[in-house]
């Protein structure tokens, strides 16, 4: 059972590494979006450090949104999604492996380059720690929520904009708690409470979302 999980993750990672642009494009998009804000709002460091958490989180949200379409699309087109359904392993389990692979490919790179952006937006070191922590805990929730949206829209020809319509409202709490944690950290307050709230949401999402994703895929494929 566990071997299958690892195998699915590895397969997805290997397939992605063959098309490197698919991994790199969302990251470039993320960097460019963040760069636009100082250009549009001016370079006042106090202003930038104040808006930084919101900007980075919104950019991460949009970058994740762009990459979601790939999550099930190829497997849907070449029929391997149907194969997955017929396999003796529970669909929710296999799907979690795919989401994990997707998170490793899209959100982890964002986490890795976030120090660079923190410098761009003159974020303080304490706030930066909080930001990395919220990104680490928050982006998996985003991936799980997004996977539900993708699973619902994968069979549709024009699923892209619809995906953002159904997914963005649901990701608002993550945005709110993450930016509040960073703001608290920036003003020298304790931000552990927000991080724990995010962690609780992550636990909830990990337990519930795979079943929703599996149910949604069954709808899309039948």
């Amino acid at each position, binding site marked *: 059972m566990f071997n299958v999980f690892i195998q699915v993750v590895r397969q997805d990672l290997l397939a992605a590494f063959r098309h490197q642009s698919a991994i790199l494009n969302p990251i470039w998009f993320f960097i460019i979006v963040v760069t636009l804000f100082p250009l549009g709002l001016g370079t006042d460091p106090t202003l930038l450090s104040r808006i930084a958490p919101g900007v980075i989180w919104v950019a991460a949200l949009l970058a994740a949104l762009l990459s979601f379409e790939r999550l099930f699309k190829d497997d849907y087109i070449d029929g391997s999604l149907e194969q997955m359904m017929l396999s003796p392993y529970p669909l929710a389990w296999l799907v979690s492996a795919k989401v994990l692979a997707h998170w490793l490919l899209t959100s982890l790179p964002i986490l890795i380059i976030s120090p660079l952006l923190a410098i761009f937006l003159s974020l303080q070191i304490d706030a930066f720690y909080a930001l990395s922590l919220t990104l680490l805990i928050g982006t998996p929730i985003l991936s799980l929520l997004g996977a*539900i949206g993708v699973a*619902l829209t994968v069979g*549709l020809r024009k699923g892209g904009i*619809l995906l953002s319509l*159904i997914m963005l*409202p*649901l990701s*608002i*709490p993550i945005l709110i708690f993450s930016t*509040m944690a960073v703001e608290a950290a920036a003003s020298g307050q304790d931000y552990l409470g927000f991080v724990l709230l995010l962690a609780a949401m992550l636990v909830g999402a990990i337990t519930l979302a795979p079943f929703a994703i599996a149910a949604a895929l069954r709808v899309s494929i039948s």
Partner: protein
Amino acid sequence: MLKWLHPYAKAEHSYALAGKLMPWFLILTIPSFLVGIVWGLAFAPADYQQGDSFRIIYIHVPAAMMAMAAYSTMAIAAFVGLVWQVRLAEMAVAATAPIGAVYTFIALFTGAAWGKPMWGAWWVWDARLTSELILLFVYMGIIALYNAFSDKVLAGRAASILTLVGVINLPIIHFSVVWWNTLHQGATITKFEQPSIATEMLIPLLMMIFSFATFLGFMILYRFRNELLQREQHRAWVVKLVQAKQRG
């Protein structure tokens, strides 16, 4: 309970049952609406702080409450539909979503029109208005998803799944928005939250809430019948219905 019914007869029976119930809902709606609105607009005393602008409460509060109630209805219907595979329940989800969206829009708009004289701005990021706005987004997402599928059976099931995902999320959204609001606005506006409301003001409010609720029921039944007709349009009972209408 539904198993013994013939699968084709089920839709026809529900159509007839909904048709029988509809007039009752209308009978309950119209008098309570008329009495409530006349009483609220003309007879209830003006609020000592807000003057006559408080009369917006008679649509704002019922619309906001029933927008939530509509979502709860959808969530229950979605649960029933997905767990027991009752397609009729999934149709009820699709039938309710637009009504809930309209109620949410009314609550938002009247909230803004009330906020302008009270707060001096059409829009403030008040916790209640903000979560109402997000509720509208969620409704629009469900409606858009439903309309995107050409196969309405799949559409109903997809919308049901999204409704259930939303019902887990909505309390979290509301909670997070309230928290975010208290942190961002030093002094929260509590003008909406009157500690106690005079009886002469409360009775028309309750009547309006009642009439909004029964109207919600009426519209759900009406749109549910539309869904049934749409999906079963090739079945004999719909054909018979159409022919009867053409003759009559």
